[in-house]
């Protein structure tokens, strides 16, 4: 294990963490403000990637395709909120889980019908396709660095939006006491619809940005959704700061576990036992982390005020 390899994997972990944050942010926003548990958030991530496939193919450009895909995701989010999610406000979490699971089945199948089951690729934008030398012997792809930067930018923007603007103030007030905000003359349905669509767009942004480095396929949202749940459970449901810290933690532990756990186990186990146990333990590592954190803090690291 060299220092260079370690640093590369740290960056990869950071990049996974950023993707997770973009997905978890929308998930926790919708849950925290609207009290809706939205399993379909994972397919919104997947949809973002597929919309990006079509938008880049249509426009022939990554930079024109991205806003187009995001706008389409926003519109679909608004549509979904109007058709289904709106009926679920104030209902049992079980109802929300089942209805959004129905949406998953529908959207996944629709995607298979429109784009087929075979994995697709989004071409890497020309300007970002090289790699950059960070230090001696450490080259890192530019695109991944841009992804990290864009994610951090969105995180900063979200922070300003939530803490410094009128919309953010309404949002925080809505999370604390929606009926009161409504009584003060704010159109709470319109506010909720916008928040939901915004969350859908964040997930789609993650999907669209992940497209050039991952393969775009129907099941791609599933694993990320479960990891995003782990993130917000660790961070505390409804807490944006928790989502950020949790996402980076999960991204780093998952990536570092997969790269180094087998080698570390070889120090104490035989080579064959280590190669057998390493991958299994690595895929369990984030869940072990979650269990450990919950054991001490059942409401996560940054519990949102009840």
């Amino acid at each position, binding site marked *: 294990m060299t220092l260079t390899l370690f640093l590369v994997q740290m960056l990869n972990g950071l990049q996974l963490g950023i993707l997770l944050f973009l997905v978890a942010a929308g998930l926790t926003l919708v*849950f925290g403000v609207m009290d809706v*548990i939205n*399993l379909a958030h994972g397919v919104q991530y997947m949809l973002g990637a597929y919309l990006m496939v079509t938008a880049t193919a249509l426009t022939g450009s990554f930079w024109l395709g991205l806003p187009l895909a995001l706008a389409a995701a926003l519109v679909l989010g608004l549509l979904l909120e109007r058709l*289904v999610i709106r*009926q*679920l406000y104030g209902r049992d*979490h*079980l*109802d929300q*889980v*089942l*209805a959004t*699971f*129905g*949406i*998953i*089945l*529908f*959207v*996944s*199948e*629709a995607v*298979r*019908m429109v784009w087929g089951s075979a994995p697709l690729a989004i071409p890497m934008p020309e300007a970002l396709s090289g790699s950059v030398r960070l230090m001696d012997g450490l080259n890192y792809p530019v695109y991944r660095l841009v992804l990290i930067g864009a994610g951090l930018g969105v995180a900063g923007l979200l922070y300003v939006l939530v803490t410094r603007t009128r919309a953010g103030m309404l949002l925080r007030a809505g999370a604390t006491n929606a009926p009161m905000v409504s009584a003060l003359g704010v159109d709470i349905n319109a506010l909720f619809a916008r928040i939901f669509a915004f969350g859908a767009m964040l997930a789609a942004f993650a999907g669209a940005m992940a497209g050039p480095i991952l393969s775009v396929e129907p099941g791609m949202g*599933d694993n990320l959704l*479960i990891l995003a*749940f*782990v993130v*917000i*459970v660790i961070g505390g*449901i409804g807490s944006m700061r928790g989502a950020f810290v949790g996402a980076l933690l999960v991204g780093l532990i998952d990536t570092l576990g997969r790269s180094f756990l087998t080698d570390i186990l070889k120090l104490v186990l035989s080579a064959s036992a280590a190669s*057998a146990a390493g*991958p*299994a333990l690595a*895929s*369990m590592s984030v*869940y072990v982390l*979650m*269990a450990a954190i*919950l*054991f001490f803090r*059942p*409401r996560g690291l940054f519990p949102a005020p009840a």
Partner: protein
Amino acid sequence: MTRALLALAVFAALAAVPVFADTALLTLVARAMIFALAAVSLGFILGQGGLVSFGHAATMGIGAYAVGILMEEGVRDALVAFPVAMAAAGLFALVTGAISLRTRGVYFIMITLAFGQMAFFVTQSLSAYGGDDGLTLAARSTVAGARWLKDPKTFHYVVLGLLALTVLVCAMLARSPFGRVLAAGRDNERRLRALGVDPYAYRLVAYVIAGGFAGLAGALYANLTEFVSPAYLSWHRSAEFIVMVVAGGPLSALGPVLGALGVVLLEDGLAHLTEHWRIIFGPLLVLLVLARGGLKTLLGGRRDG
């Protein structure tokens, strides 16, 4: 009284299936009954305890893998493999339940989901037992050395008998003092605690029992398909179990049976119509949820009343 009659009618109908069914239909009905067994066990903790477990497929899959792995290692008899399957699933439920049950509500849903995924990934990395591709069983389990389970009709009645037993046990547990404490914890935890009862241990025991029965369902399912794979533990299947329980009405032991039969038969019917059957099933599910108030009163009735 009417509910006992309904139960009798359902089981009589299931018992009559081998008289007219061909092998394909027998397989389909056996699949439905096995899923019903798992759904009944989930219905017990969900309906009686108010615990929405999203990792139920994992316990069923662990039961299936127990049978598959034992067979690979030369242990073929159901009298050994089935109890081991139940114990393995129960043990998983004990460990994960002990942690998950410290939380409530939506946290519980997500944590059981995460533990289910964890089991899913472990089976995926079992390279000695097929890994990603799954494991094909050499044959069905023997019963005390005899190859009874090979015959589809005998298998049908074995599954039916175990399903009836599960329904009976869950219904009896629900009426027992144990079940009443569970229900009290579901309805008003604060009041239960004021009486000096901590629901945690009761919930954990119920969770382990449900896991054990799901393990039994998994052992049967491995025998039906003569194959086990990580897909058996997928969170989609856990969600399907919840759909079965809710569709049938979670407040009686019979509800999940009807729900499971309905869902499996509906899926099979839709799959005959189009390979894209989920595009119809998904919206149906949404409609079911939006109309649920009505269905609940139709099939419900209070399990503990």
